[in-house]
């Protein structure tokens, strides 16, 4: 008789479990709100700690190369000529083909001039465009030129960042820089 009972119980079990499962799916169909985000038009909030593309505060950078040393994949290339404390910039690029967004380039910086933004849209039309130029100017700025020619002692930066950086101050600064860079790119 065991097999007969098994036969009938399997029918009941099969139909019952299927009906229960259908109940779950029907409840989702009728009452649960959708959770997908229509991406390009809507975006989810990104926490400020997010490890996205980098941004460089070039006027602070002293070309020490510690970020390039810390990088596990060697995606940062820095080149600048030192005229005393004035820098003649030729290159500061990050190769996003290689970058693994590990954030190891941020903590070694002695002047706290490189940050990670919440920018995550990396797609480009050609692999060559993935090498991002971080510089806002190359060579010498007029004020640098003036400094060099006058051989005046360059002034210390007006406002030194608080030790350890961090805080909302840094975040708002990064956000402003991001917005600026985006606007420049669109032009």
């Amino acid at each position, binding site marked *: 008789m065991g097999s007969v009972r098994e036969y009938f119980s399997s029918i009941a079990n099969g139909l019952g479990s*299927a009906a229960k499962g259908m109940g779950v799916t*029907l409840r989702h169909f009728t009452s649960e*709100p959708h959770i997908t985000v*229509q991406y390009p038009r809507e975006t989810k909030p990104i926490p400020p700690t997010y490890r996205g593309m980098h941004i460089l505060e070039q006027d602070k950078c002293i070309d020490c190369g510690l970020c390039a040393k810390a990088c596990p994949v060697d995606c940062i290339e820095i080149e600048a000529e030192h005229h005393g404390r004035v820098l003649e910039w030729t290159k500061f690029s990050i190769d996003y083909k290689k970058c693994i967004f590990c954030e190891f380039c941020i903590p070694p910086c002695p002047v706290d001039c490189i940050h990670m933004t919440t920018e995550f849209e990396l797609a480009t039309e050609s692999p060559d465009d993935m090498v991002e130029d971080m510089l806002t100017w190359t060579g010498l700025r007029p004020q640098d030129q003036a400094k060099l020619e006058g051989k005046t002692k360059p002034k210390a930066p007006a406002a030194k960042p608080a030790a350890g950086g961090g805080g909302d101050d840094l975040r708002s600064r990064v956000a402003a820089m991001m917005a600026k860079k985006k606007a420049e790119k669109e032009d």
Partner: protein
Amino acid sequence: MDILITFFAETLGMSGVWPLSFAYATCIGSLLGFVTVYAMFAIWMERKVAAHIQQRLGPMEVGGWHGWAQSPADALKLLFKEDIIPDGANKWLFWIAPAVVFCGVFAGFIAIPFAAGVQIVDINLGVFFIIAIASIEVVGVIMAGWASNSKYSLFGAVREAAQVVSYELPSATALLAPILVVGSFKLSDFNAYQAEHGWVLFANPFMWIALLCFFIASLAGCKRAPFDLPEAESELVSGFHTEYSGMRFSFFGLEEYVSMFVVSAITATLFLGGYTLPFNLLDVGNLPAPFHLIGVAVLVVKIFAVIFVQMWLRWTLPRMRVDQVMSLGYKYLLPWGLFAVAGTAIWQVWMEG
């Protein structure tokens, strides 16, 4: 049909075989148009049902309102895609298989009574005609699977053959029960009976078993989950149409949705009152000519209700294994179908005699 023949013969003054030919051509042309539009809608509906069950939104972009134009856009894309025939494929069979598959299912439309008079041919053995002609599809599937020169395709085709042939039996058996109640194989008789006596489903308790058996068997017949073994995505990549691309591929998709429509039409006509309204609120069968379309609307609503259940099941249940499909067919559906037939027969005799 008769109206069309009369129209061509008398209004346009044709003679000989022409009125009949033109009438058929009109029917087939309009049916093809209907099928295309229906399939596009059904695919869109499937995606929406799946999406909402899974808390997604589904297609939202093409065409504006809830991505209604997604399916036409996909069809257009498939039309322009390269038609790839794999190396080592049997070109002739590979080429003709989608057509065979589609023809088999499409022929089933001939006998469906959409409304009183809106039926191409009212065949005497209408029920079995549809069941039989829909099985021609298997031939096409085997052609496709064998001609593709791919082992996955072959596996899919063999599974399909075994499954469809096995499930002919329980589905035909289950259909015997309503046939016993109505006493006819003619599909129009079912509508007439149900207009008079109410839905066959409520004729006796065994009808519920018959409906369940037929519904499950018909799922297997259209290769819908949990019986989608022939195209089991996680096992056979895509089954018998792995190697197809472009328009030929879309024919297989079309075939699936069309066969869903046909079996749902049978379910609706045989069990759920056909084109008649519940409690025969309005005698749809005897309305004058343009109001026949009310019957069409009623039937289509019922058909889509059944199709929705099919979709709902697909997005709920896991897939069965080959041997389990066979044992379900032969050990469960067939005996219960026979039980329903015997019960109905006894019920009929006992109640009436």
